[in-house]
């Protein structure tokens, strides 16, 4: 259950992250979507399967890189 929830949260943050690549929408979206994958990591950590958690870590790292590279 936790793994599926983590995957879903990760997917939602990934979709939200796409418009955040635009320079104009950058920081507000970064503010909203940075905590999202973290919640996914938290939920995914309590499942036996780790794929959802790892996916959320990937999304978080990408969002973080986006944050420090573009802004």
């Amino acid at each position, binding site marked *: 259950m936790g793994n599926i929830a983590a995957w879903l949260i990760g997917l939602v943050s990934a979709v939200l992250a796409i418009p955040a690549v635009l320079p104009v929408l950058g*920081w507000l979206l970064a503010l909203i979507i*940075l905590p999202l994958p973290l919640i996914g990591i938290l939920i995914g*950590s*309590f499942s036996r399967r780790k794929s959802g958690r790892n996916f959320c870590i990937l999304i*978080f790292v990408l969002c973080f890189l986006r*944050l420090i590279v573009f802004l």
Partner: protein
Amino acid sequence: MTSAAAAAPPPEKGSGLAQGIGAYLAWGFMPLFFKQLTSVPAVEVVAHRVIWSVPLLLLILAIRRQLPSFWAVLRTPQTRWLMLLSSTLIAANWLIYVYAVFADHILAASLGYYLTPLLNVLLGYFFLKEGMTRATFVALLLAMIGVAILAAGALDTLWISLALAFSFGMYGLVRKLAPVGSMPGLTAETVILSPVALGAVAWFWMYGGSGGFGSSLKIDLLLIAGGAVTAFPLLMFAGAARRMRLTALGFISYIGPTIQFLLGVLLYDEPLTTPRLACFALIWFALVIFSVDSVRRSRRGEAL
């Protein structure tokens, strides 16, 4: 999922949770209260906070029949000296906090309180010879990178965050060394601080400019209410701390800085620059690792 009833839930768990959330909600929204007092010097605000807390805390202690333990704190030489130290630390913490709210640095204050649990681990490692798991070490490393980013990109308010975190972390450490309950302890601290606070209030009364105590009924009432604003969240926290598990209490403790963060960004329009956001993100990540680790350890029944 291996949460097989490792430990029986403590009695009155539900009411403990409500009290804990209540305490952290109150602490989170505290900037709204202090923002009403910006015409008053920060030192005077803290002095009044100390003075008006004393009678209220004594009254609460009397109702809870804890006055004997309060006297014991002041009579025992060892705890008396530790309380002198912790009073200094809490006074510094309150002063920096009020200054941060007045100077539009609520975000820096919020960062300081996010850092506190991680700093507690570090202080416990160095001063109390407590162990550190690999996950906690990674969390600390991430938080340090976050602080380093802030030091490189937004040095101006970093001292506020670090001073708040250190004063509160050291305060917790001293309180750990002195076996004193939270209410009798705070009463002893405010009583110890009250001569200095009375002196400060007298000085502001005579030489301070307009804007302080006596400038308007609203300001006077707010300064007096500072006592209640100090005592009641702590009363709720003390109730929660007795009934809740430490890991659960650790989770809800993030309510406080999170509300402050949102107030700073959304209500008071404090600038959330890239280095700041990057620092917040790293510390949030660190706290996720730290929380997962502490839940795992408490499930295995290890001491936290």
